[in-house]
């Protein structure tokens, strides 16, 4: 577990693997979940952001280990389901498992330190997350969930922009190499 949460994966090549202080990932994930629940109390504008998604993407990209990334995404997603009102456990878990895996896989292959690449990565993964979420709802829950709407486009842009700022803040929590 320590390997997954703190040390990250060792990858080949010149891609740098970042490390964090102990408990950083756990605290950040919990904070994201709490803030997400907390901000929902103050209006629908909070729905523009999916903080657990951003945290999953960030630590997946930073650790660059698909195994740890998918487990982190699964854990965050299941907790997010647990905190929701009417979502069955596993709905967000499945989507964020995919996100953690993909983010780690992408982070192991390309440089994700640049703000533009982070923006683009979050933008793409946001929509992929939505596609998985809608597909799961349609197939398993028999619900009508959209794959894409203009509102989702706005959300993805806002989330990507917010992620550039958030990721820069989270970079400060890295242990010096």
């Amino acid at each position, binding site marked *: 577990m320590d390997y997954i949460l703190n040390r990250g994966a060792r990858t080949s090549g010149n891609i740098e693997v970042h490390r964090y202080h102990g408990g950083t990932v756990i605290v950040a994930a919990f904070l994201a979940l709490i803030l997400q629940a907390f901000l929902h109390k103050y209006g629908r504008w909070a729905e523009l952001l999916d903080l657990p998604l951003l945290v999953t993407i960030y630590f997946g990209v930073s650790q660059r280990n698909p*195994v740890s990334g998918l487990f982190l995404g699964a854990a965050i997603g299941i907790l997010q389901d647990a905190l929701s009102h009417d979502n069955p456990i596993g709905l967000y878990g499945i989507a964020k498992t995919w996100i953690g895996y993909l983010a780690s896989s992408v982070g192991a292959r390309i440089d994700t330190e640049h703000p533009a690449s982070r923006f683009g990565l979050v933008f793409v993964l946001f929509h992929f997350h939505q596609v998985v979420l809608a597909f799961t709802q349609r197939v398993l829950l028999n619900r009508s969930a959209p794959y894409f709407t203009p509102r989702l486009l706005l959300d993805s842009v806002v989330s990507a922009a917010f992620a550039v700022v958030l990721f820069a803040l989270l970079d400060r929590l890295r242990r010096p190499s």
Partner: protein
Amino acid sequence: MLGTFSRFRPLTLLVGVVLAQVLLLAVQIKRGREVRLIRYWAVELMTPAQRAGTWTFSKLGGVWTGYIALHNARTENEQLRSELDRLQLRNRELESEAAEGQRLGLLLNFRQGHPEASMLAAQVIGASADSSSHTLFINRGDRDQVRRNLGVITPEGVVGKIVEVFPSTAQVQLINDKDSGVGALLADTRTHGVVRGTGDPEPRMDYVVNDEKVHPGELILTSGEDRIFPKGLLIGSAGGASPASPFQLIHVHPAARLDRLEDVLVLLSQQELTPKGSGESSSVVPASPPPAATVDARAADTSKASASAPGRPPQPNLGKPSANPTRRVNRTQAPAVKPAAPRP
């Protein structure tokens, strides 16, 4: 295998984790009529396998029961055929016994309904070898106190009379025999005549003048004038009547089924039978009130029957030769039989 797993470990784990969560979702989700998705999937997954298993086992069972397990079917089939033949034979025996019981029941009812007359039940055991004569043999004879010129009847009607007596059998001349004659009268007009056999299945009634109106279906009864049959027994009904010289030609439909006789009653006396209540199959047709002699004979018969079986009605000897002829009812009342030719 392990090498492949290590190589694709992240992807394998991804699939495993996603599948685990899908199953987790399936456990929670309910579809349709409150059926959890996991059960729905499980049933959908298992049903083809169960169906295939059932099909396989049914085919295997069919092969077993249809081919392999039939090694002793031939023997069993033969046994069953034998059993079927035996049961069919037994069934026919029982049917025959039931029919016989029904006939004997009718005779018994008729006999018990007329205790004033002395009767003897008999079975038809043979018929004449001569096709031109209508006679038959019964299993009663001289040992049973059967004499010539005793009347033979069935509950349906008159059959004929005894013409020959042997030690254990007797020959009965049917009323349609060409030498037969029975004193008769038309029930409606009380016109007397003689029912004579012609050799045909149906006899005819003679000595009725052409002026008499005879209606088809009119009953023809015994008149008692032949001193063989008591008065009032049903012979049959009138068929067609046609004028002839010097008397009418009246065809008679016999009431008794002369071609299917199996059990008959021999009248041991010319005692007139008293008509009974409605519903009883009887050859006795209401006529004049019984004479005093009938009442006396009935009393004597009843007292004798009571003496032989106290508290029980008299049991007639039906169809089988009696080992003790002295037990036969009204033996003492057997008439002094006189051969009598029918008189017009």
